[in-house]
């Protein structure tokens, strides 16, 4: 179930003002983490269009994040003077084009077959990034492309201070996440996507083209992941195969699941947790990934609805559910 609560303008305002003013009271390192949270939130939201909305578990979503990251980085590197805007748009487009090409094969499948095919395509693109050294410089990666960007970020001595990068990322990611929220919860398109997850056959006999709807959703999801990747490339001023590897593909599954797939903003919570708790725990132990893994196991077993589901453990806020939410 994706509840479609209407947020009060006041709450939205408070969050926006908070996000806007946060850097002025945060240390550089906190601003750094904050930027990472916003980028990963966008990535996780994009992933949840597949996982939460369409019910498709992908193990290759970093492919689109990586396409976006590499496309933006290569554009900035090889087309000196290209403004940041078109470079970001190029990254987003690269993700979307990858999505429409690969999705065309993947969305015909479901369940484990979908998962396997996304994994296969993800690994294929990873191999390209890894092996095509002439273009990607392989495992070494490349950076320093931001100094070529013709549009210097405001208030930046060189290629961009943490603060201006934060504002750039927020200014792009937050409206895009909001627009995606509106698309999925306020338009007939969102209802069609939900109906397909609940019962594909039912949507079909009402006259909906399930394949086209899935492919469009897949493409939007890939485009958003491309945008996240593009922002990540600019933020780090560096790309390497880690932006397109299996680790990142599983990280986004973790974030999305832990945050909660049944609520549009669940993955945002997951990204917040992933970054801050990850920072916290990795300062304590080198084996922080074991802790993360254990938390994931616990969530899958006992809180399958993620953090959003935790609220439901408290009786007073537990919504009454009289029927199973997915139709057989």
């Amino acid at each position: 179930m994706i509840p479609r609560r209407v947020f009060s303008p006041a709450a939205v305002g408070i969050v926006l003002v908070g996000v806007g003013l946060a850097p002025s009271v945060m240390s550089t390192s906190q601003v750094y983490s904050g930027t990472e949270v916003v980028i990963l939130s966008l990535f996780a939201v994009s992933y949840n269009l597949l996982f939460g909305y369409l019910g498709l578990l992908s193990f290759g979503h970093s492919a689109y994040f990586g396409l976006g990251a590499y496309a933006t980085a290569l554009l900035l590197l090889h087309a000196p003077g290209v403004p940041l805007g078109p470079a970001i748009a190029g990254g987003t487009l690269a993700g979307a084009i990858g999505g429409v090409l690969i999705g065309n094969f993947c969305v015909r499948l479901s369940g484990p077959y979908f998962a396997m095919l996304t994994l296969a395509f993800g690994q294929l693109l990873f191999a390209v990034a890894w092996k095509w050294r002439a273009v990607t410089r392989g495992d070494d990666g490349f950076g320093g492309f931001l100094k070529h960007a013709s549009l210097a970020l405001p208030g930046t001595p060189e290629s961009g201070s943490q603060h201006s990068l934060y504002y750039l990322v927020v200014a792009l990611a937050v409206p895009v996440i909001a627009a995606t929220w509106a698309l999925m919860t306020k338009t007939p398109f969102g209802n069609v996507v939900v109906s397909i997850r609940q019962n594909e056959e039912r949507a079909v006999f009402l006259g909906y083209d399930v394949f086209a709807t899935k492919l469009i959703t897949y493409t939007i999801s890939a485009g958003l992941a491309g945008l996240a990747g593009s922002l990540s490339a600019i933020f780090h001023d560096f790309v390497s195969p880690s932006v397109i590897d299996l680790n990142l593909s599983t990280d986004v599954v973790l974030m999305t699941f832990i945050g909660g797939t049944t609520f549009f903003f669940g993955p945002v919570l997951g990204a917040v947790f992933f970054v801050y708790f990850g920072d916290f725990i990795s300062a304590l132990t080198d084996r922080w990934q074991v802790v993360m893994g254990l938390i994931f196991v616990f969530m899958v077993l006992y809180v399958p609805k993620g953090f959003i589901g935790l609220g439901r453990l408290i009786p007073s806020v537990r919504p009454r559910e009289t029927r199973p939410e997915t139709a057989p």
Partner: protein
Amino acid sequence: MTLEVQDLVTYYGKTQILHNVSLAADAGQVTCLLGRNGFGKSTTLKSIMGLVSTQAGGIRLKGRDVRGLPPYLIARAGIGYVPQDRRIFPTLTVRENLMMGMKPGSRPSEGRWSIEDVLAYFPPLERRLTSKGRVLSGGEQQMLSVARALMGSPEVLLLDEPTEGLAPRIVEALEGVIREITGHGVAVLFVESKLSVALRLARRVYVIWKGQIVYEGSPGDLERDRNIRQQYLEV
């Protein structure tokens, strides 16, 4: 004829389910396909809808062959379908469920029935417009399922045992609505296992037995034909 099915052949794997099924449903009339459970009634409707693939035969909607089209195009061509499980979309509200029934891309005003018209047929739904589908009773779900199909302005409405498991009062209301729908020129084809329902509603009756049509006639004739009834319908 609005809907003409000719010599339809359907297999599930290697098992032949439908053996040259032929039937017709005319505009403004209720046609009933009677038969015991497991003998091909639902498969006939699913075959018409394209939800199971057919191996041979013809399905004509107002003269246009629709057999072999993907189901979503068959739906858009004008065939509405209310499946037996009658489930609606549980997390969407009643209103959203109804909107889902409109032909994709059309506006509420373009259909034969507006939401208001459809709600006038089903007053209980009007009070529940903002309720989620999952909190509706079985009877309300069935009403919503039929109402949703009407939102698509179908030429032909296929109903799979629409009254099964419903309280008598709701059955009565639903039968009234089915009669009214035909008054608007819709061809209604419903499958049923109970003769009594067919007698009350249908103008024309087909009896199916192990995937073959074994009787065609008026409900009155069928009622008088004890032989056919005993052979094919009574348990």
